[in-house]
């Protein structure tokens, strides 16, 4: 544990050194930051925009914006959290452009009882992800997560897929901690409910999902 903590500390100070060098005009240092985080930014952008071309644009635009505004970065949070905030905003802008209703917002919080009350409770097969081939599984997971409202999907992706802490997720999204927790709970429970039909234990006497 101590080794992990010390490694994380090293990464933060190393990151800060790269940020300082980049602020002083060292493009090679900024390039290191790009290489460190471009895969994460791409993943986040594609989860939010649900579109590959948009995600490619977001990666470029987010890093360019970060570079141009590096002086504004106050260093009281991690560089990565600041970068994620830029990437999420760019992604939401792309999403709004593609939607005709233009109402995509992180402030949406559709609170209803059925969001949290499970409709179906069934045991899942042991290692349910092994019921499907890799490609099929990805298709199921994509379809399922894309069915969530953008505000829930974004919180789930940052917190559970990318592993940001609740506090970092709140900071990156400009939300309060209770708002992050509330959306995260709903996102997790809705995904669980939707995955039931693919992963639940087959009833005795049937072949089950293959």
């Amino acid at each position, binding site marked *: 544990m101590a080794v992990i903590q010390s490694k994380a500390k090293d990464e933060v100070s190393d990151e800060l050194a790269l940020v300082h060098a980049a602020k002083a005009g060292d493009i090679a240092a900024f*390039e290191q930051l790009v290489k460190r985080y471009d895969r994460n930014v*791409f993943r986040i952008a594609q989860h939010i925009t649900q579109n590959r071309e948009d995600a490619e644009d977001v990666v*470029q635009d987010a890093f360019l914006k970060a570079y141009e505004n590096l002086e504004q970065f106050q260093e009281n949070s991690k560089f990565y959290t600041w970068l994620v905030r830029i990437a999420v905003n760019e992604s939401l802008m792309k999403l709004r452009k593609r939607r005709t209703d233009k109402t995509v917002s992180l402030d949406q919080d559709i609170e209803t009882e059925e969001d949290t009350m499970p409709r179906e409770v*069934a*045991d*899942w097969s042991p290692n349910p992800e092994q019921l499907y081939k890799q490609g099929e599984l990805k298709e199921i997971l994509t379809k399922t997560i894309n069915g969530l409202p953008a505000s829930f999907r974004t919180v789930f992706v940052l917190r559970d897929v990318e592993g940001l802490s609740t506090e970092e997720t709140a900071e990156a999204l400009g939300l309060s901690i209770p708002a992050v927790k509330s959306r995260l*709970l709903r996102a*997790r429970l809705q*995904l669980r409910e939707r*995955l039931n039909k693919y992963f639940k234990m087959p009833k005795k006497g049937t072949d089950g999902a293959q």
Partner: protein
Amino acid sequence: MTCKEFLKELTDYLDDSMDESTRAELEDHLQWCHNCFVVCDTTKKTIEIYRGSEMYQLPDDLRTRLETAIITKCKSKKKTNPS
């Protein structure tokens, strides 16, 4: 503790961010409520499956192309905005 109360605390329980006495109350509820046990277990699996899914990997060739484009643009910004 009711099932509704249990569900309200589920996120903190799964994230291991709660005090000992609340945790003990939730674990007591899980001992006898099979429905909540299943919901808790399958929600945990949902998170694990997504975390391990490797969705939306950035292919190497596209990654190189994006990195080159970003750095080229940064360099031209630097030239047009000398500090």
